[in-house]
Structures are given as C-alpha cells and as structure tokens.
C-alpha cells in the first residue's frame, strides 16, 4: 500500500508540474494575445486597456494559481475570442475523442494479439516473415496517410462509409458507428503494427521459457500453452506498452480528427491555435497531458497488482 501511496504522490506532483509548464509556455512566451487581437497598428493605450481587461498585467504566479484553482473545480476559464466558458466547449468534444482513442485501443489489440502471435509461431516460415514485414512497414506509415487511403478506397471508390463528419452516439448508434469505422480503422491499423511487434517478441520470449516447456511436457499444444500460460505473462508487460502507446494514439487522434473533420478535442485545439485563443489551447492541452499521465499512473498501479511477484509487497 505504501508503494501505491508514493506513486500517487508522484502522480499528483506531476499533474501540478505539467499544469505549470503548460501555463508558462502559453503565457511567458512573447506572443501577447492583446497585441495579436488588436493587430500591429493598435495604439499603445488600447493594448494596455485590453491587457487590463484580460487581467494580463497582474503577476504571472497569481494568474497561474487562479487558473489552476479554476481547473480543479472544473472551470477552465473563458475563451478570449468567443467569450464562452471553455469547459462547456471541451466536454462534448472530450466524449468524441475518448470514443476515438478507446475504440482504437481495443481495435489495435484485436488485430495485434493474433497477428503478433502468428508472426512469432511462424517466424521460421515464409508467411510469418511476411507478416513481420507488413507490420514493419505499417510502423512507418503515418496514421493520417492510412486514413487518406481508407477514404480513397472505402468512401470515394466503394462508397461504403462516409468520408468524414461525426454523428453523436446518442442521436443514432448506426450512423455513429458508420462514421467511426474509417477513422478508428486508420488509427488501429497503424497502432496494431506497433503493438504486434511487441507481441511477437514477447511471444518468442515465452516460447523460450522453462514454464512453456513444462506446459508442453504435460500435454498442452503450442497454441494451448501459449493461450493458457503465455497470455497471462505477456499481458503484464503488454500493459506497460499500451500505457506508453496512449501518447502516440492521442497524437494520431488529433491528426485523424483533422483528416475526417471530426469535432473532437484535436480539431478544436487546432482552431484555437490559428485564432491564438490561448485559454482554450491551455485548457485542451492540459486535459490531454493529464489524460496521458493518468493512464500511465493507472497502468503503473495495475502492474503492481497484476504481477503476483509484486503483489505481496504492494499490499
């Protein structure tokens, strides 16, 4: 338990530090929102007045603490461009992005586990090598490029799925699913090539373990021993990989939202960047970074409980 508490303390500390870095990056750098909003021809008095109104001339630390205080109670401030509360803008888009990332994680695992295991078991045969080669290539493909070609094939040529857009789950489940197939597919394929390579080498490691040999000696087939004893051991290390890969997936999702014109956090973030709406940029970047840190923290804790060799020490 003590180890978990120490990890919790580090986690909370890292949330705090991350928020400070984000605030500092958007506020301490020279691009001043007041200058930008008023253009280069603005008179100095006007700039000063606007800075006053936006509260930009108060000490940096005070502004940071105010912002953080708001974030903790769910208030991400007010947009400098639209004048609407940022929280209100983020929430519906958070749901969209979460669907995208969550489904892509599941999709990539569904592809990667069998593919990786196959490549490992057949590694000395042509088909296994071919599978490895394909995943090697998939590793090098940007997910948005894969997305573009899925659009060309399935939206432009075959017209099976829409080329872009999004329908809320609560409005129509069927349309929702239809719109998500291509973006989730693009993310999953690329992500699966990364994970399948981990699975492949993890399975090869298992094939060389003594406990795998024992399982074979008591009468399991190779597949059976792998399923019964390999999977448990692999999943523990795979969990860490999935945690680390969430970052890549999140980045992929931001770009994929752009490819498919999906109204998620990423597309709102990019709009805010072009408009220099720093409050929204801060808010969304914070949500994304905290999400990454949270997921890695959860993986870390889960790891402590999943591996029986660590269990006694954790409890």
């Amino acid at each position, binding site marked *: 338990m003590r*180890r978990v508490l120490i990890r919790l303390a580090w986690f909370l500390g890292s949330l705090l530090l991350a928020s400070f870095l984000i605030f500092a990056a958007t506020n301490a750098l020279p691009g001043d929102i007041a200058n930008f909003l008023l253009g280069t021809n603005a008179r100095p008095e006007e700039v000063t007045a606007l800075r006053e109104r936006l509260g930009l001339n108060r000490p940096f630390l005070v502004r940071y603490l105010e912002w953080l205080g708001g974030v903790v109670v769910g208030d991400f401030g007010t947009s400098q461009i639209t004048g609407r509360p940022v929280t209100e803008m983020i929430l519906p888009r958070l749901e969209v992005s979460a669907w995208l990332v969550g489904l892509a994680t599941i999709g990539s695992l569904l592809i990667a586990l069998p593919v990786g295991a196959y490549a490992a078991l057949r590694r000395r045969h042509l088909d296994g090598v071919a599978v490895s080669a394909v995943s090697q290539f998939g590793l090098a493909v940007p997910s948005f490029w894969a997305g573009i070609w899925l659009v060309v094939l399935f939206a432009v040529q075959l017209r099976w799925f829409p080329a872009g857009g999004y329908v809320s789950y609560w409005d129509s489940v069927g349309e929702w699913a239809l719109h998500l197939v291509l973006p989730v597919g693009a993310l999953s394929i690329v992500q699966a090539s990364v994970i399948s390579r981990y699975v492949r080498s993890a399975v090869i490691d298992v094939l060389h373990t003594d406990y795998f040999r024992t399982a074979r000696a008591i009468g399991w087939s190779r597949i059976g021993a792998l399923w019964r004893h390999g999977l448990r051991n692999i999943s523990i290390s795979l969990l860490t990989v999935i945690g680390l890969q969430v970052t890549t997936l999140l980045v992929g999702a931001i770009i994929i939202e752009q490819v498919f014109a999906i109204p998620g956090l990423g597309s709102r973030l990019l709009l805010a960047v072009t408009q220099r709406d720093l409050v929204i940029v801060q808010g969304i970047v914070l949500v994304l970074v905290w999400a990454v840190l949270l997921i890695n923290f959860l993986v870390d804790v889960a790891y402590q409980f999943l591996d029986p060799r*660590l269990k006694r*020490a954790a409890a």
Partner: protein
Amino acid sequence: MSLIEIRGGAVTYTRRGVPFVAVRDVDLAVEPGDRVGIVGGSGSGKTTIARLMLGLVRPSAGDVLFRGRSIVTGSPDELRRSASLVFQDPNSSLDPRMRVDRIIAEPLRRRATPVEIEEALASVGLDPQHARRFPHQLSGGQRQRVAIARALVADPKLLVADEPVSALDVLVRGQVLRLIRDEVTSRNLALVMISHDLTVVRELCNRVCVVHDGRIVEAGPVEDVFQRPRDEYTVRLLEATLSL
C-alpha cells in the same frame, strides 16, 4: 595481527521495502597465508560474508578490520589494493566490450606493458594470443582463467573466490581449482573459498566455516569439522554430500 577480521558483523538488506537480515554475529579472522573455506546452502549468507570482507556492503552492526584498521569508518582503499575477488560466473564478471588485456590491467590502475600482460596470461595457462580477444570469444574455462589473472595481477595478499567453478562445465572444474590452489601456494596468498561443495573445500582449505541461516554455526580446522562435526546442520550437510 590478522590480515582481515570481521567482528560481530551483521548485514541487513532492504528487499522491496522490507528489511531482512542476511548475516549476523559473524566473527572471522583470516591470517596471512590462511586458507579458509566458507560452506553453506544457497541463501545461507556465505556470499554476503565475502562481500562484507571486501567492503562491498556496509555492515549494519560490527566492524571489519584490515591489518587492524577499520574499513568501515576508514577508507577501504588499502584493503582493495591487497585483496581481490574471483566471481562465480565469468560471463558477467568480465566486461563484454573490453579486450582481455584491458580487463587484466584494470587493477593496476595504469596501462600495462605487453610483457606484463603476457606474464599474467602465462601464469594462468593462457596463450599470449588471447590478449586481444573479447570475452565472448573464449570458452567458459578460459574466461575464468582471465578473471583469475585479473585477480592476481596487482599482487594481492588475499584472494576471495566465490563459487569459482560452479558455473563451469564438470570437466574443466578440476583444472581451474588446481590453478587456484597452485597460485595460492606459490604466491603464499591467503584464500577465502566460498563453496556449496564440501569436497572442494576439503581439497583446498585448512580451515572451514559452516554458514547456516546467516550465522557461522561451526568453524575449525578442516579435518576436525569433517571428521567430528559438532553442529547438527554440519552433520546433515556431510551426510547429504554425495561422492564416489
């Protein structure tokens, strides 16, 4: 004055936040030219005693004296100039990215001349051509010979050998043990031999300490302990030892 002496030594490790006592109440003195065997099962603490003796772990209680001076409160430098260690597994005790000549020269703390390297190799029965090889290009027995050459190059007074043959193939064990015995005799070194194998200790040592559960349960001249064991654990150990 003893060459090296452990007085009431104890070592406590922290394993996953839980402290556990590896050895305690260890009293052991090694005189110049002494050949001491330390025997016991795995996890009994015999390796910890060796590490304690060489200043590689700090005692949680007691003291370690080299020529009467503490290496716990004082500096272990002088001890390290006069003592060396042969590890169990030569695969991991030789840096895989160093050539044999650099490995052997390390305790000299200076560049060794080709003649010195050649002599060091010859003393452990290796051909001079091995000097430019990497450890993975040698056989297990040859690697352990390189490790012994490194242990002897700086003219130590004390050689500690931690299971020096248990990672080696049966057929080369005898050769390596003979090499250690011959070098110890000709250089008149003090030897501390850690082993689970009583036969080895019987052949090489004049005194023996039996370690069980982190304590020395019996100590004395080899023949006394082996002929007339007093401790119940020693008796069981002797009974369990198979020989032809």
